[in-house]
């Protein structure tokens, strides 16, 4: 069964004022347990608005949203428990940090869940270890850390709550390539360990292509397409038309195809491209 499902989800900002703006318009989605979903779309296409519906931070103007088949707004007083099941990491989450020590900040979510001290401690230490934060950092002030480390702390705070669905809004925005890789590696490791469902908004096609099972492409408040990674990137031209980009390596291979060099497969990652080329060369008897 789908873990998250939306039905005709519509959200209008500042309804009834001159600033009225429909940010998402009749969105229907089904997300399965354990999937990794990549969400792409130009700025302002409604990605952030959409994901804030999944944990009930925004209430849809119209339409329904189901978690495990249950309407999350069926009982208003239960909305907080939805937030423990669907963890949301905002864009630039380092700006939400406020505690005196890294430990306390990671523990904030767990404490709100009402877990006991021992369990909180176990979770914080485990998450910090998994995400690669050295233990001595835990007693430091989070404001002494570097930008990339702060972001890891903020992400760890949500991961420690062990939500069944983890949503991250542009987790790698404005990080250097090393910081970006680090974040994506952490998320991947987290998925491997917990098998939780992950939704990740990102403009980094390379990263999304590398580990998303399915990709949701948003365009002008609606769903442009929602399909397996391979199928989405095979529509490279349409996607470029709505202002997005397919991975560079995919473009190279699409271009090669035009010159008659068809590898018969879709390529999104450099590693896979290397493998494919080497295999092809070997088949032709060229060894290098």
């Amino acid at each position, binding site marked *: 069964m789908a873990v998250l499902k939306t039905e005709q989800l519509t959200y209008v900002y500042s309804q009834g*004022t*001159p600033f009225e703006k429909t940010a998402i318009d009749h969105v229907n989605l089904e997300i399965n347990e354990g999937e990794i979903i990549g969400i792409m779309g130009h700025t302002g296409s409604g990605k952030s608005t959409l994901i804030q519906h999944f944990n009930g931070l925004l209430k849809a103007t119209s339409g329904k949203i189901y978690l495990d088949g249950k309407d999350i707004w069926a009982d208003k007083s239960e909305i907080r428990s939805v937030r423990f099941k669907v963890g949301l*990491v905002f864009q630039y989450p380092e*700006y939400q*940090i406020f505690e005196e020590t890294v430990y306390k900040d990671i523990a904030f979510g767990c404490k709100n*869940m009402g877990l006991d001290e021992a369990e909180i401690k176990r979770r914080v230490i485990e998450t910090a270890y998994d995400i690669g934060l050295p233990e001595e950092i835990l007693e430091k002030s989070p404001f002494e850390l570097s930008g990339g480390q702060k972001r890891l702390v903020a992400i760890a705070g949500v991961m420690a709550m062990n939500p069944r669905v983890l949503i991250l809004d542009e987790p790698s925005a404005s990080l250097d390539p090393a910081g970006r890789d680090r974040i994506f590696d952490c998320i991947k490791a987290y998925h491997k360990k917990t098998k939780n469902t992950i939704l990740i908004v990102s403009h980094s096609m390379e990263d999304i292509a590398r580990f998303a099972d399915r990709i949701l492409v948003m365009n002008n408040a609606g769903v442009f397409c929602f399909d397996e990674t391979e199928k989405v990137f095979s529509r490279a031209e349409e996607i470029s038309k709505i202002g997005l980009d397919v991975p560079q390596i995919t473009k190279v291979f699409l271009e090669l195809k035009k010159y008659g060099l068809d590898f018969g497969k879709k390529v999104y990652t450099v590693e896979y491209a290397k493998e494919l080329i080497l295999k092809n060369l070997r088949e032709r008897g060229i060894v290098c």
Partner: protein
Amino acid sequence: MLKDITIGQYFPMNSVIHRLDPRFKIVITLIFIVMLFTGESFICLGISAVYTLIAVLLSRIKFKMFMKSIKPLMPFLLITAVLNLLFMGDGEVYFHWKFIKITSDGINVSVFMIIRIVLLIMGSSLLTYTTSPITLTDAVERLLSPLKRFKFPVHELAMMMSIALRFIPTLIEETDKIISAQKARGAEIDTGSITNRAKNMVSILIPLFISAFRRADELATAMECRCYNGGEGRTRLRQLKSKLRDYTALSVTILFFVCVILLNIFI
């Protein structure tokens, strides 16, 4: 949501009121406020109400927007009205219980005060709804410029004002985001017990202050990078020119004001 706060907001449109010279608008608003507080009878209040209504209609801003700016002040309004109602002593007594007395004077005064404050809010909202913050501070600077002779830092004051106005929406947006982020971590902000809520305020205020200081710092650097060094020798992109309609508006306002004064004297 915090977004719905409309005080200090500007609705870009193109009505007569929007096009008035901002300097005149400020002066007119001041006259209007004085008019409200000089009027001592319901008739005077009625005249002010008519005046407000005409201005609101001319601005073509929806009436709902004004209601929105009154709403946050409602509790304050009601409390003062109730206090007046219960403790005003004179006039015909309608109801008496221990030290509480409801009298005709009490009712009159509370109703009078509510109407007066509502009109005050509407009139001053009209100024900010129809004037962009930049023009507004520009106008303040111009109006105060005679004070420069007495070494009063007019330009600095106007600059501070425009920066503050500029950052109100930004900070509101920021606060909204931080609240959402902490709610996502399970913080109880608009639910739960009072003590819990108070504790969770810290989780909003600290990030908010940090970001406000960071922004201030960045802005100062950005201004210095563009060689900002105060008002000396700065010229303006927008020149303010007063037209016939500005004088007309001013005259009409003064006319209303004179009516109120005359009524005060003769009634």
